[in-house]
């Protein structure tokens, strides 16, 4: 989902090619100095060394790069970093709090909801977003439909579904 509160970023005083974007990343305010054509995914991976978010297609087709932008899931490969002045962005590195795994992470571990682990960050970020979206039903068919933008080529779908449904209960209890 687009960030509807985005302000125009300030042109940097340092070089004419870069802009400064102020945003909150995993709870920390940061000022990102970046060229206007840098995609958010590449900014995270290549500029901020947050490599838990993965690139699987660069075209918004596979879901591996899913992050939360202001609480909503988004393909970070389909949005430019400079569009996120004022945004709150959460990546997989921000899921665990105070050294404790998020209930979704715990459920993925317990249910073996992955194989290679490459799509896993995206699967989990979409799951967290889905839990917050009350329009999406809680039955298996609704979950499968909602998560179909996250491909798992290893085919661990059955375990992902059971992890998601089990985490839903834990998130509800928390």
């Amino acid at each position, binding site marked *: 989902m687009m960030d509807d509160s985005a302000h125009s970023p300030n042109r940097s005083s340092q070089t004419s090619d870069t802009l400064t974007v102020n945003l909150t990343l995993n709870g920390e305010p940061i000022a990102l100095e970046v060229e206007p054509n840098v995609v958010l995914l*590449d900014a995270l*991976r290549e500029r901020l060394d947050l490599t838990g978010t993965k690139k699987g297609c660069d*075209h918004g*087709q596979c879901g591996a790069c899913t992050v939360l932008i202001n609480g909503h899931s988004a393909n970070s490969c389909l949005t430019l970093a400079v569009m996120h002045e004022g945004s709150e962005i959460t990546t997989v590195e921000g899921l665990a709090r105070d050294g404790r795994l998020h209930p979704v992470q715990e459920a993925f571990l317990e249910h073996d909801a992955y194989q290679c*682990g*490459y799509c896993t960050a995206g699967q989990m970020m979409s799951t967290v977003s889905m839990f917050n979206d009350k329009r999406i039903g809680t039955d298996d068919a609704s979950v499968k439909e909602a998560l179909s933008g996250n491909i798992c080529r290893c085919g661990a779908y059955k375990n992902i579904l059971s992890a998601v449904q089990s985490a839903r209960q834990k998130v509800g209890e928390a």
Partner: protein
Amino acid sequence: MTETVIGHRTARIDGELKLTGKADYAADHNLPNQVYGYPVPSTIACGKLLGLDLDEARQAPGVIDIVHRGNFPQLQPSDNNPACGAAARLYRSPSTMGEENKVGEVRLPFEDDGIHYEGQYIAMVIADTFEHARAAARLVKARYEVHEAVPGLFYTDDEGEEAGDEAVSRGDPAGAFDAAPVKLDQTYTIAMETHVAMEMHASIAHWEGDRLTIYESTQGVVFQRNALAQIFGIPPEKVTVIAHYIGSGFGSKLFMWPHAVITAVAAQRVGRPVKTVLSRQQNFCNAGNRPASRQHMRIAADRDGKLLSIRHDSYNETSFVDEYTESIGSGTPRVYACDNVSVSQRRVKVNHGTPTSMRAPGEVSGSFALESAMDELAIALDMDPLELRRRNFADRDPSADLPWSGNHLRECWDDASRRFGWDQRNPQVGSMRDGHEIIGWGMADATWEAMRSHCSARVELRADGRVQVACGTQDIGTGTYTIVAQTASELTGVPLERIEVKLGDSMLPAGPLSGGSMATATVMPAVAGATRKAIERLKQLAVAEGAPFAGKEADALEFENGALSDGSQTLSFAELLDKLQRGMAEGEASAAPGEEKDKFSFRSFGAHFVEVRWDPGISRLRVARVVSTIDIGRAINPLTARNQVEGAIVMGMGMGLFEATEYDPAGNIYNNNYADYIVPVHADIPDIEVELLDSPDYNFNEFGARGVGEIGITGMAAAIANAVYHATGKRIRDMPIKIADLMEP
């Protein structure tokens, strides 16, 4: 051995790293002073590269270098080419399995001016940022002489050339076929498939003097190390290949592809680390595929269903730069009892990148034709398709005249058919309905050869109470980290939390490829051997002069739960090492298959039962239910083993219903992305119920494991096609099944 860890559901020891984003895949590394490579692909599939116009690209922001045929080290010494970097020339890798230096494409990058397939690299731009490299790559202009392409197997009448070593013949297949009362003569095809592992191929190459370190997404660090050493003409010790985590490969990352060589040369030229991540589109062109195949199947039986003849003649695509043989019929002489069998394989050159292994290479394609033909034969005989298979059970390996080490196919049939409810099947086509949906039930057998290779490993019992295991194999998502830890834990009694596993580094003791479903059976015996040697070493240290057990016989000491004991005194290995002021007691061992392969035939079997639902009103076909029972020998970790089989079933659904890499008549792929190349997603996934028989194969190795990665995909496409026939009366012999096939009258 009392097993407390092996055979138990065990959460992955690397799970938390994968779930928190800390697992380091190749492209996650960012080295100091690193720059970026972006390959420039050919836009034509066949012809000649006449020249490159690089002026605009060179002047683009951030560009550091452009490597191409004009400045790339060549096979021949290049005195007249001062533009070359440090490596004056390159060599081809011998590309053999025996020497463990096989590569995906033997031709070196830019080796000649021929264009053999779309996407073939014609240059690579090196720039300070990813964005600059990508932008400049698009400014490179190429001039071509375009030749007519062979766009694929289904576009040509070329019979290709025979792969002689694939031919098998026993009995008199032609005579038996002619004389048989019931026979079938059909042709089956499968579209080209692409692995599309989620993680794209990536290399980061870094030279320190004459030493090369390369982070690569690879299923074989040792193979790539050896191949790079051959290509650069340097000793293998000077090359380190690192692949701690791999976003899977399914075969596409077994053998090195040209992007790694270009990246290594580029890093040498610019004197800085170079990171190259292929785009998804380049992954389709330049990193292998399962070639399209055509199979001519002639099969005959007597009126009781006893097989009298099988002739299985197959064709696979190969490229114009390499000879790739898909061993499509390799399972055919072994699966069923039949006295008269022949198999042949031909390769047809097309303008595609060189094919490579893709999950259950060969046999999964062959199983589609064989298991479809068995279904068709059952219908011709008016016999239940499961009963036809029962009547042709092979109680020995018919091709090797060896006993099976264990063939539990009958138990698989019994278990899966009971759980599925097969006895409720009405054989009449279209007879089973649920509202507006027509239900189809089909089945097929699954099978995969059990293979084992050689392997070395090192184990260290450390003074801090931890155990470290090291092996130069990789974990591609199958759970190798965990089964290695389980092995060490089982033998030492040290809990998993205190076992560290190092994989994915060619500097470690040499381990096998992660492929062919052979890693588990190959790695575990070496890890066990190294663990035992480390324990022996500990005992020797313990009885030495001045040591806590001085004067005792080393053999008289017991090692249990991580502690040595002589009956009166018990010391943990950490306490003992501490007293001895030693950092570790270590052991290194190698293991390899032995004479058992001359005594038994090792093969896994299983059975898939599939329900499809066809809604003719809206042309909707779904796989609704899959029930499978698979014998994989001992499941070392049932949690991850079942996940593997379920994942293979999902990929088999892809082969049956969705997957096809499509070329236009000029030889250009027109669905080279994740939206147009369809793979199963969450919403496609049916109810999948997998059972693994627990039947350890101790003839194969001491742990009884036979391997698990491939077998689940074999037979799946046929089981789906057989179910579709049962629902619709339409026999689809061309994979994937398309809705249009079912709509035609």
